[in-house]
């Protein structure tokens, strides 16, 4: 079982994840149409790149944009969830050892156990906060569908099961297998669901940044758009 999950299924899920998301990223940009979108994407590369970088960077930092500042609960929930969700799978101690055994390459640094634990707990706390928000706030509630809860559950399940395995709650092997299955399910689902935002978030922010950088004032205002 372990061999199957960490062998065949590992390679399948990782391949689907990386190839799938790469294809979606490429298709996004191939599908941009300067005339329909009304943005001269290629005419002003400097302003385009400048606008794109600013658009991505400012939204990656907590409280740096008006949007984040306006909604502190969401900002805390969002970053608590996403920081751990991105860092732990790559740099968690056990994962780093596993990755080295698979591709014989060691990632540049490894989180110690305590940091891994804290980040994993933050993911769970962030997910709880995001769920509460969806259940309580009318402006989020009206938009939320069952699939949104499912995606949230799919995203947080590897962390819950990972912590159960880490703390050896009951049967360690059960949690370990469950953890691997959840993680691989997440990888396989990513290109085909809203989880594609792993890359399409960047794609969309780059596009809007270019739009504002090239067409909507980026060449007029010294400071550019104040996200």
């Amino acid at each position: 079982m372990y061999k199957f999950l960490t062998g065949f299924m590992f390679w399948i899920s990782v391949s689907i994840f990386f190839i799938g998301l790469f294809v979606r990223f490429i298709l996004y940009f191939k599908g941009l149409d300067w005339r329909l979108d009304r943005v001269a994407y290629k005419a002003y590369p400097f302003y385009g790149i400048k606008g794109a970088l600013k658009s991505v960077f400012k939204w990656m930092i907590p409280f740096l944009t008006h949007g984040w500042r306006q909604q502190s609960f969401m900002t805390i929930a969002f970053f608590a969830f996403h920081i751990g969700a991105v860092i732990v799978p790559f740099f968690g101690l056990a994962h780093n050892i596993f990755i080295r055994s698979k591709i014989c390459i060691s990632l540049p640094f490894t989180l110690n156990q305590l940091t891994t634990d804290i980040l994993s707990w933050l993911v769970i706390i962030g997910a709880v906060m995001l769920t509460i928000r969806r259940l309580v706030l009318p402006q989020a509630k009206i938009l939320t569908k069952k699939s949104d809860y499912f995606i949230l559950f799919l995203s947080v399940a590897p962390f819950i099961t990972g912590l159960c395995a880490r703390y050896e709650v009951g049967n360690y092997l059960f949690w370990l297998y469950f953890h691997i299955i959840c993680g691989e399910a997440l990888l396989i689902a990513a290109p085909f669901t809203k989880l594609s935002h792993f890359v399409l978030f960047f794609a969309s922010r780059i596009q809007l940044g270019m739009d504002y950088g090239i067409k909507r004032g980026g060449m007029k205002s010294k400071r550019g758009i104040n996200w």
Partner: protein
Amino acid sequence: MCSGKLCSKEPVKTKEQLRTLLKDTSGKLYYKQMQDLEVDTDLLWKTIRTTLKSRIKTWLEICSRCGMCAESCFFYLANDKDPTQVPSYKIQSTLGEIVRRKGKVDNAFMRTTMDVAWGKCTCCNRCAMYCPNGIDTGAMFSYLRGLLYLQGFVPWEMKIGAGMHRIYYAQMDVTDEEFIETFEWIAEEYEEDYPNLKIPVDVKNADILYTINAREVKHYPEDLAYAAILFHLAGENWTVTSKGWEETSLAMFAGDWEACKIQVKQVYEAMERLKPKRMIGTECGHAHRATVIEGPYWMGRKDGKPPVESIHYVEWIAEALRTGKLKINPEKRIKTPVTIQDSCNYVRNGGLKDITREIIGYMVEPGYFVDMEPNGENNFCCGGGGGFNGIGLYRDWRNKGFTIKRDQIIKTGAKLVLTPCHNCWDAIRDIEEVFKMGINWSFLKPLLVNMVEIPESMKPAS
């Protein structure tokens, strides 16, 4: 009472059609006929398949449905945080639903969608600034308006407005002859105070080609005179064109992309015919958006620019004050609490927030200017943008939405609101009419004309 087919998928192309539509007071029969308008679902889906590409498709798909856009929308705030006014909900329940159903929607759905597209969104694009995923719901509503227009589900006034552009190449029934006659007549009225004030028509290779909003010809001819006076006092080598003088585009509000192209083509042809160094448009936000920002794309110009450098009137004013072409008499600076309405079309979507503040530095006595909160590109729409001002069907909704702008103005304590944009000017006027706050509002031109120093050589002989 008029009769005949008023509401259809066909654009208004003749004066006769236009007259018939105009006779239908408030579009009563037009909207009645709309209830029986068939939805061409095949055409709808075909249009979507050929025009809804990567950008909008992805926006619809990756929306996290987090509702972070809610607080950015003045409709949501003005309507007691009604969740059905959340931008994401509005677009997902209209365009999103049409796409999910592959265009198989009925008449009632399309009429509701029309109400949302024109009555619950002004395409101000503010929500785009507040979405982590970079989703521009305003841009999607603009796209949706295009789909609705093709199917004939468009507010009466928008159908008329787009028709005007197709027939008169102007948003109103103003002919080329009427434009020139009015401009020359009004200049004559001021010639006594400003000797040698002339309206140069069709002068080739001028430094400035001035374009306007047809409303100025029809309703505010003084504005034309003020523009002429300021160019005259600044010693500018300027001209107007006898054809292609209209900078605005109600067709853009209507989603009639064919008419948008027809309209802007006139202006670009005038530029190519007269070869001015620059084009300067009047104090109008959407006119600038249509002719300078979006127009090049309608015309398929790969560089995204009009044929000659084109700027908004506020850019010219700032330049004229900065270079000393226009000098303000310090005694006449504004000494009353004053604020400014940042136009969505040339501030949030045109980057001119600093330019207007520079002008204020010259025009307003220090200590009298109070910015609205929020301001600049974060400012709220005046409440009447995107064609909203002109649509009678949604008047109550518009007036409800006005409460956000009203409160913003009240908080500044200003008695004068600078509105260098026709739509904003109308909206602030109507806010005052509805709420009676005791404020004044003004374009920059009339204030400047009374403020600038007249060089000795230009003064009338006493």
